[in-house]
């Protein structure tokens, strides 16, 4: 059972390093899914995924994790770190002070046999900040509120998938949404002093907001924070999905991530449309990781744009596509709603 054999005390060490704690959890025959304080952890026998929000020190979990894996006789074959642009970059603690710093931190920790390495920043495809011209790029200046995608990948060899027979058709999509519709965001606030458990209120939010209808066959593990905010994970066979919501006006934010098959419109187009209709955000970024080649990645990006089109009007149609050595392809697109 590989990493699933880790004691809770060992898992807790990993989470302590990130400054997260478990609020609820669920497991099935394939993997364990933990809802953390506005973050998520997924533990497969040979893979672990940690997703955090805010000012957590995510990368600090890596040394601890590597040492526990080593104790179990497991050697790391692949490491990937992805993130959007920080909303409050100055509030970020070390090593998250800059992408450069983050990459240096990982490069120091990861063993030499992960020899296929690449770090890159994928800029937004819709330009909300007008000064995207060729003027001597002052690299220290962040590109306004516009969203860049940051990817670091280190691999030992071409990846083996959990669902090995269909590995080349699997994708992971990460969606970041900001400026959520005010009315819809209200659905993620608790009634003051309701005296109820975060589990129970979370389940009600899942049903009332339509989140429960994104994948009706998945088992949901959800939690509502006090006074607001919401997190959920789902387990569906070997596949996970997760949503985190910060509904406060001025910096409202929601993220969605799931695994699916490229052959299934339900997995990509339908979940994308359902998620966007739940939050009606002003900006969306969509990053899709696959094992397909560049041409197929272009087709993925076209499908994403086509799925969002009826929910527009949006600015931003192009896509960035980046190849990672022994690490597949990432497509990145950003969309800004032309409200009124």
């Amino acid at each position, binding site marked *: 059972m590989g990493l699933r054999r880790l*004691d809770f005390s060992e898992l807790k060490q990993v989470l302590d390093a990130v400054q997260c704690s478990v609020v609820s959890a669920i497991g099935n025959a394939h993997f364990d899914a933990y809802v953390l304080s506005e973050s998520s952890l997924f533990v497969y026998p040979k893979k672990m995924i940690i997703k955090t929000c805010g000012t957590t020190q995510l990368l600090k979990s890596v040394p601890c994790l590597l040492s526990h894996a080593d104790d179990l006789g497991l050697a790391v074959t692949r490491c990937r770190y992805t993130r959007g642009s920080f909303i409050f970059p100055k509030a970020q603690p070390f090593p998250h002070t800059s992408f450069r710093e983050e990459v240096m931190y990982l490069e120091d920790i990861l063993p030499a046999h992960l020899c296929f390495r690449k770090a890159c920043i994928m800029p937004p495809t819709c330009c909300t900040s007008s000064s995207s011209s060729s003027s001597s790029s002052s690299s220290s200046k962040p590109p306004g509120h516009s969203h860049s995608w940051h990817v670091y990948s280190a691999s030992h060899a071409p990846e083996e998938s959990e669902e090995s027979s269909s590995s080349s058709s699997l994708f992971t999509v990460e969606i970041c949404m900001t400026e959520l519709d005010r009315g819809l965001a209200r659905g993620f606030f608790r009634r003051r002093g309701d005296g109820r458990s975060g589990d129970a209120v979370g389940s009600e939010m899942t049903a009332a907001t339509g989140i429960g209808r994104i994948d009706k066959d998945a088992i949901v*593990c959800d939690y509502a924070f006090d006074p607001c905010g919401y997190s959920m994970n789902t387990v569906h066979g070997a596949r996970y999905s997760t949503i985190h919501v910060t509904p406060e006006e001025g910096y409202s934010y929601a993220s969605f991530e799931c695994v699916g098959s490229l052959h299934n419109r339900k997995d990509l187009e339908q979940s994308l449309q359902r998620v966007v209709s739940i939050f009606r955000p002003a900006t969306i970024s969509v990053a899709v990781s696959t094992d397909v080649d560049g041409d197929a990645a272009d087709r993925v990006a076209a499908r994403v744009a086509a799925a969002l089109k009826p929910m527009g009007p949006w600015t931003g149609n192009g896509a960035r596509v980046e190849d990672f050595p022994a690490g597949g392809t990432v497509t990145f697109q950003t969309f800004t709603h032309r409200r009124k």
Partner: protein
Amino acid sequence: MAATAAAAAAAEGVVIACHTEEAWNLQLQKGNESNKLIVVDFTASWCGPCRFISPILVDLAKKLPNVTFLKVDVDELKSVAMDWAIEAMPTFMFLKEGKIVDKVVGAKKEELQEKIAKHMTN
């Protein structure tokens, strides 16, 4: 005789692990006759969330002698887990007088406590 006495002594204040179908049926029957709330924890040795919630359940059992806490390992009692349609772990089933009155899917500490409090008094 000694085993029966030990089982009887263990019936209050601890989580009773049912390792055989006979033990499971016996515990269910006993619970049904007693009118007590029964909480069944469907668990698996390889499930991390089950290990996370396990000490919390032990604490609850200590504090609530009027509730019967049973534990079923889904690999040990496969047919029971199938009959009860257990898809995710841990799953907590709440029984009263032979009927399922509620359930909690997942290691949800607060919801578990809330539902136990609700069904203890009802």
